[in-house]
């Protein structure tokens, strides 16, 4: 059907683009033209292969050969050797890191195995509004296996042995949680799915619910069977209308097939699921607050114990798991605990879904085995930092997590390593920061979030975080002192030690980790009254460089507050007492005559 017999795919991802992928395309086309092959070989620019370290990449289809670190002058060799003579250009092939042998088949390259989709196995593959497509992908098979071949103890043992830990952030063993809920006797028990995804920059759970809602429903029924519950509740934020819609459709279809409701698959087991809507309070992602919210009470946490496994929803034993935790369960049941625990690191098994956001080229949703390094995630899968800027830090775990710096790039990501480095896994939001981000402003930004989301029940969180936020604000305005840095640290430690729930206990984490990793920047703010990243407006001064200024008056005309004076063809001057630091003049100047001091 195609008039082309061969395609040359050239990586046009931002990172390869900067290393001349346009020139490669040009040269390839010229070569093909010269050899009269333009009608049978097509050259095309593609999106990022996610292998930027070895970029630019050229892939030859259909023989599936990948060339790495291709330079524009290699075009001739590719066309003459590969296309015309049918011989691979060995020097452009990837060398296997172990055997040093050249590899051409992407399936044999480790790199293409960096992402492994377990939780996202059906996302972007099936139609989420059609249960048949889920069933065709082995859907509800795990449920069938559990109900007919396994006792509840066996299911729990399997989940425990898999080593899976809660993906909501705390990382508690899923199997153990189920076991505790099972042990507590009651005529009524509940399975709750926590879909109250609240971290800024996080969209893992939304994507799973929008792309594969049945995987969560199936896992909840399996959980119900294991702990002896017949009621399931999904607590989902009302800001997720599409996820809610798709869940409603999924629940309706599952009921029609008898996969929810009475006598599931003729086994006599009953289980049904209903939805509960949250109003978007961050603290309601904490399980006790979530349960109170579902009961119609204020979304405030209570001290544990009693744990929900003993006394949860309406004082009955309740098991609360996160969306991502549930979505992996059918895979664990079908492929076994041994398989799941073979993926990942010592105490963190399986894969983790991350939402990449911020100053990164390939903003998106990825799933990698635990133990993948931050460098691999940011610079290979994520395609590196936007606009060729320098990497500065990565905030993991949302506002409860910490900011890791360049020195942490090679640590393998897992629950324990991130804690050791001063951050947390959290729910999986990763916000990437570049050289233009000010670490005092960033800490202030996250604090602002927790201040707004604090429920106000305990004083350390309600008052302490507010004071922390004020202090950071003063530092940003150049009104801070070196003693304020000690004050920040002391107050942070006290809040962590004394706050009632996870929100307060973790809210100072961004401040502490940023002070640890970027202390010099904090000192620059209080001592030199300078913001090295050039973000804190109060600490900036726009100045005209008299050597470059030609007196074109463009800056004076664009200034909204008339702070710039000067005659035509004479050096201009910015009055700092009037300047509002909007930056319009700098953008307008064609002679690079305005700079920030």
């Amino acid at each position: 059907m195609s008039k082309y017999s061969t395609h040359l795919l050239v990586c046009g991802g931002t990172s390869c683009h900067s290393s001349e992928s346009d020139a490669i395309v040009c040269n390839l086309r010229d070569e093909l033209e010269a050899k009269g092959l333009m009608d049978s070989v097509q050259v095309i620019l593609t999106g990022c292969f996610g292998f930027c370290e070895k970029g630019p990449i050229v892939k030859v289809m259909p023989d599936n050969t990948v060339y790495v670190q291709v330079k524009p002058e290699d075009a001739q060799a590719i066309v003459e050797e590969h296309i015309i003579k049918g011989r691979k250009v060995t020097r452009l092939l990837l060398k296997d890191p172990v055997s040093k042998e050249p590899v051409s088949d992407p399936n044999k390259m480790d790199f293409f195995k960096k992402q492994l989709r377990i939780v996202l196995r059906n996302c972007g593959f099936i139609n989420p509004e059609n249960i048949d497509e889920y069933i065709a992908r082995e859907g509800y098979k795990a449920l069938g296996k559990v109900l007919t071949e396994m006792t509840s103890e066996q299911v729990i043992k399997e989940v425990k042995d898999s080593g899976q830990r809660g993906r909501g952030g705390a990382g508690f063993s899923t199997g153990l949680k189920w076991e505790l809920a099972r042990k507590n006797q009651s005529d009524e028990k509940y399975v709750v799915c926590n879909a109250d995804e609240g971290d800024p920059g996080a969209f893992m759970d939304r994507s799973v619910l929008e792309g594969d809602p049945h995987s969560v429903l199936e896992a909840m029924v399996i959980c119900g069977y294991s702990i002896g519950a017949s009621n399931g509740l999904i607590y989902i934020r009302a800001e997720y209308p599409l996820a809610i819609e798709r869940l409603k459709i999924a629940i309706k279809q599952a009921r029609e097939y008898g996969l929810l409701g009475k006598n599931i698959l003729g086994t006599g087991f009953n289980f049904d699921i209903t939805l509960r809507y949250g109003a978007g309070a961050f603290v309601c992602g904490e399980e006790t607050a979530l349960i109170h919210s579902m009961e119609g009470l204020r979304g405030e946490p209570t001290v544990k114990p009693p744990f929900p496994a003993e006394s949860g929803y309406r004082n009955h034993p309740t098991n609360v798991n996160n969306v991502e935790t549930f979505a992996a369960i059918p895979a664990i049941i079908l492929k076994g605990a041994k398989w799941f625990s073979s993926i990942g690191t010592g105490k963190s098994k399986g894969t983790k879904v991350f939402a990449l956001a911020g100053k990164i080229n390939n903003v998106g949703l990825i799933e990698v085995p635990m133990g993948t390094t931050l460098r691999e995630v940011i610079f290979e899968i994520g395609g590196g930092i936007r606009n060729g800027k320098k990497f500065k830090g990565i905030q993991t775990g949302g506002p409860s997590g910490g900011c890791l710096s360049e020195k942490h790039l090679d640590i393998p990501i897992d629950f324990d390593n991130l804690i050791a480095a001063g951050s947390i896994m959290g729910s999986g939001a990763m916000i990437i920061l570049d050289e233009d981000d000010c670490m005092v402003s960033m800490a202030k930004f996250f604090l602002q979030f927790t201040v707004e989301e604090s429920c106000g029940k305990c004083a350390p969180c309600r008052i302490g975080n507010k004071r922390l936020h004020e202090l950071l604000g003063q530092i940003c305005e150049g009104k801070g002192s070196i003693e304020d840095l000690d004050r920040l640290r002391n107050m942070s430690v006290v809040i962590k030690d004394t706050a009632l729930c996870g929100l307060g206990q973790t809210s100072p984490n961004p401040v502490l980790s940023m002070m640890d990793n970027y202390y010099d920047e904090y000192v620059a703010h209080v001592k030199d009254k300078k913001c090295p990243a050039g973000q804190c407006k109060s600490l900036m001064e726009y100045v005209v460089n008299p050597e470059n200024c030609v007196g074109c008056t463009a800056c004076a005309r664009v200034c909204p507050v008339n702070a710039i004076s000067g005659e035509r063809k004479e050096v201009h001057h910015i009055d700092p007492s009037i300047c509002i630091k909007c930056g319009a003049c700098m953008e307008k100047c064609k002679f690079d005559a305005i700079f920030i001091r």
Partner: protein
Amino acid sequence: MSKINSIADLKKKRDELQGGLGSRVNDTSNAVHVKVAMATCGIASGAKNVMEFFSEQLERRNIAAVVTQTGCMGYCYAEPTIEVKLPGQDPVVFGFVDLKRADQIIEKYVKTGELVDGIIPVNYQTIDLNV
């Protein structure tokens, strides 16, 4: 929909469905299959219009095709994204699909097999639960 009353029923259903994931129309072996990533983020970037465009235009241009929606493919930076599977070939994912590119995809890739810009190379593995 009739109830699935036993594990044997479920297996029968699965076997029937596995005859082809695109079994919504009777014979898809010669049909082009277009999947549009329709998560919130995709829809916000215009995936709904793209999906309507493909449904309408493929029919108008007399191309046997099945157009369905799916969830997030993970390439937020390149929304709207779609996957096109020509009969007997591996699926290809295209990013940054606005109506202009959608038209190109039909005219070039679907009709002649010529690739167009915006291809997103697959760089992950997915598990197979069929064990």
